[in-house]
């Protein structure tokens, strides 16, 4: 594409106006789309053909109400225009506006225009105009705004071609300012500013002066010039307020001539729904019922497809076993890798259902109502109502959840949210919980409806939430972090979810989970298998040593082979390592094999099950088809009883509920907090808590 023209396009606009959906339609990529303000929290770039040989590099940016940021995600927009990285400076800005709130969207548009950069106004959601009684005089609007204006519906795919054409012809777009308000804010101030910053646009100079604290790096040539202007913060603040008022006056003036809306049609429906969903009592009751429905479907209804997958994988193992010659490698495949992968695939139904519910909650617009309902409660625990979104989506995966915390305005509330999110039960814990519960909790129903195993799983989810909340409270009391916190959230209108969008989201997320986990499991299984089937001298001489040990005992061939295999495993590299850490985990009720699984699952929790499967597969040649059976058959050498008895199982469950076992989460926390301090606090704090809690559990129960 070198030889053809590539236009740099930035998609900017208020939150929730459909920027990401338009981006997806232009580029064919899959940015997350949702009816919640603040879904996109980092920029994403894709390429698209505009016209003939003209291509565009399109950047989807987080939504913002103003170029003046008040949270981290919004800051990205400011950096795009004022940052020192000139290589990414857009050639043209596409401002995506929501037709239902054109006024507020034009506020941002007028700021962008003041940057004296080519800008196109795309008015989205035209499909809703009729229902809301809105009509716009586009031609007049074009004239008033001195800009290209395109009316589209991203969801209905109407007008996408027009957007492409406007981008391709961006050079025709003018760079005229539209709101000439500088003189009316403070003529003297702006005159001086203009003189000092003759080499850049006046508005850019104004942003440099007012936003210097939000800029990670200020171009050196401006640095010393800024200082004299930014000294009087109170005056600047006052001027910013005046600027806002003047901008709105100007916009009102334009919209009076071009925009008509029917107030009753516009908000009638949402009032009625809001009355119920945010009602004093019903509000909470409905929220609780929704949560209950999610749990019920995950723990009960999902079991039908899960059993199907389970038996399919058992058959696959069996079949592969019959196809391959006997040997250690086919052992690894049949008893390590296939069950390990199966141990993940089996959770697709549960995870997909969970993703489905989260997607529906967000797409309808309900999530903002939960935020509204929960803010007061969450504040007591050092968080904001907006923390509900990370905590709920943390049940899928902590990584996007932690990033979602970017749109929380206050640093302390955001930090607490980031720190406690890993306590929520993510989907990677599900495989571990499920197998342990199946081993130690009987398959019974109480009162004929609630399955005991389902209840156990539900309690673990609750334990996750409760520990997140309690640690939030503790952190709130102990953390000494400065910084004001405030809370403003837009309540988007309810929307009927787009089926296509939801199916897509669920598929994408599920695929990512399975492949992500699959790769790690494969890699770790192979490494482990190698380390378990090799070792120093005592490993190579295992047969001789065992034979000489048991000389005087009468053993048949089978028992002898078993003893040799066990000896070999214990003297392999992995065995030596495991034995070395055994003293540390013995108080929790674990043996060295579980210890190895604990260590490998520091990479990712779901590796726990496949690790045990691999280790057992090296040792044992018996016919056990599922990991569950094999784990159930494992004997504790000291007691001669089952290894995974009730106390050990409970101790492990507690350990996994608390332990910070996910390298990727730690890496994200490092990135989001910009310091090693917080991920290390999480790592050591949560691991210590896990150790202590497991120790108590095991000691009390046994």
């Amino acid at each position, binding site marked *: 594409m070198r030889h053809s023209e590539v236009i740099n396009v930035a998609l900017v606009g208020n939150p929730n106006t459909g920027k990401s959906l338009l981006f997806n339609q232009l580029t064919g990529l899959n940015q997350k789309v949702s009816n919640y303000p603040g879904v996109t929290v980092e920029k994403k770039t894709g390429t698209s053909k505009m016209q003939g040989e003209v291509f565009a590099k399109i950047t989807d940016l987080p939504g913002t*109400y*103003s170029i*003046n940021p*008040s949270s981290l995600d919004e800051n990205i927009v400011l950096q795009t225009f004022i940052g020192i990285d000139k290589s990414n400076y857009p050639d043209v800005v596409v401002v995506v506006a929501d037709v239902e*709130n054109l*006024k*507020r969207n034009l*506020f941002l548009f007028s700021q962008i225009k003041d940057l004296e950069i080519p800008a196109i106004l795309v008015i989205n959601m035209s499909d809703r105009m009729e229902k809301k009684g809105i009509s716009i005089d586009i031609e007049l609007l074009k004239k008033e705004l001195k800009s290209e204006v395109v009316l589209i519906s991203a969801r209905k795919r109407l007008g996408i071609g027009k957007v492409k054409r406007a981008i391709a012809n961006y050079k025709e777009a003018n760079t005229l300012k539209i709101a000439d308000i500088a003189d009316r804010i403070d003529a003297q101030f702006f005159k001086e500013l203009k003189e000092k910053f003759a080499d850049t646009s006046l508005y850019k100079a104004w942003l440099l002066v007012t936003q210097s604290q939000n800029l990670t790096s200020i171009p050196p040539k401006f640095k010393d010039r800024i200082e004299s202007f930014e000294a009087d913060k*109170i005056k600047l*603040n*006052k001027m*910013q*307020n005046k600027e*806002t*008022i003047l901008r*709105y006056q100007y916009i009102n003036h334009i919209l009076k001539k071009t925009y008509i809306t029917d107030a009753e049609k516009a*908000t009638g429906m*949402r*009032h009625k729904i*809001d*009355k119920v969903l*945010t*009602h*004093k*009592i019903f*509000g*909470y009751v409905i929220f609780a019922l929704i949560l209950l429905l999610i749990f019920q479907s995950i723990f009960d209804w999902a079991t039908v497809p899960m059993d199907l997958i389970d038996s399919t994988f058992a058959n696959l193992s069996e079949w592969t076993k019959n196809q391959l010659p006997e040997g250690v490698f086919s052992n690894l495949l049949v008893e390590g890798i296939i069950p390990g992968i199966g141990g993940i695939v089996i959770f697709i139904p549960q995870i997909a259902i969970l993703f489905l519910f989260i997607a529906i909650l967000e797409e309808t617009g309900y999530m*903002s109502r939960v*935020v*509204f*309902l929960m*803010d*007061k*409660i969450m504040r007591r625990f050092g968080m904001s*109502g907006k923390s509900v979104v990370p905590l709920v989506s943390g049940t899928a995966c902590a990584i996007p959840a932690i990033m979602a915390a970017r749109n929380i*305005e206050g640093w302390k509330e955001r930090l607490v949210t980031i720190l406690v999110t890993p306590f929520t039960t993510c989907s990677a814990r599900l495989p571990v919980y499920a197998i342990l519960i199946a081993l130690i909790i009987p398959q019974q129903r109480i009162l004929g409806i609630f399955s005991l195993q389902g209840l156990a799983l539900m309690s673990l989810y609750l334990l996750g939430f409760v520990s997140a909340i309690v640690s939030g409270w503790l952190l709130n009391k102990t953390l000494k972090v400065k910084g004001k916190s*405030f*809370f*403003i*959230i*837009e*309540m*988007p*209108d309810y929307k009927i979810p787009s089926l296509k969008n939801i199916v897509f989201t669920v598929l994408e997320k599920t695929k990512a989970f399975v492949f992500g986990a699959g790769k790690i499991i494969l890699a770790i299984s192979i490494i482990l298998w190698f380390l378990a089937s090799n070792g120093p001298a005592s490993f190579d001489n295992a047969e001789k040593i065992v034979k000489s040990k048991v000389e005087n005992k009468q053993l048949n061939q089978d028992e002898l082979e078993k003893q040799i295999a066990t000896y070999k495993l214990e003297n392999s590299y992995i065995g030596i390592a495991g034995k070395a850490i055994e003293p540390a985990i013995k108080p929790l009720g674990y043996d060295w094999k579980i210890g190895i699984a604990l260590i490998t699952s520091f990479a990712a929790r779901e590796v726990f099950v496949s690790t045990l499967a691999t280790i057992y597969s090296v040792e044992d040649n018996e016919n056990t088809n599922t990991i569950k059976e094999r784990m159930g058959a494992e004997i504790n050498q000291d007691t001669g009883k089952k290894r995974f008895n009730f106390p050990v199982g409970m101790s492990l469950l507690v350990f996994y509920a608390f332990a910070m076992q996910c390298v990727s989460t730690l890496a994200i926390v490092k990135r989001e907090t910009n310091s090693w301090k917080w991920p290390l606090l999480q790592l050591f704090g949560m691991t210590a808590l896990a150790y202590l809690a497991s120790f108590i559990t095991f000691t009390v129960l046994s």
Partner: protein
Amino acid sequence: MSTTIADLIVGEIGVIDDIPFDSVPLKLLEMGCLPGKEVELMQIAPLKDPLYIKVNGSHLAIRKETASLIKVTKIKNLCDILKS
């Protein structure tokens, strides 16, 4: 004592008289909450905080501490609502 948004009853409408620029975040103004605009209290969260308001075409939730800084003059009060 003057009336603020926090003193409105659900359904009441007031016109914003004054917003103290040094204690109310700029973001709120930028979202359309400006002097001279009508503000309607839509809902109060069950624990009396935050408040759900409609102002200048935007539907917003703000905390009580912010709402109680914004002075308003009631133009449509509970009596009017009950009458209609």
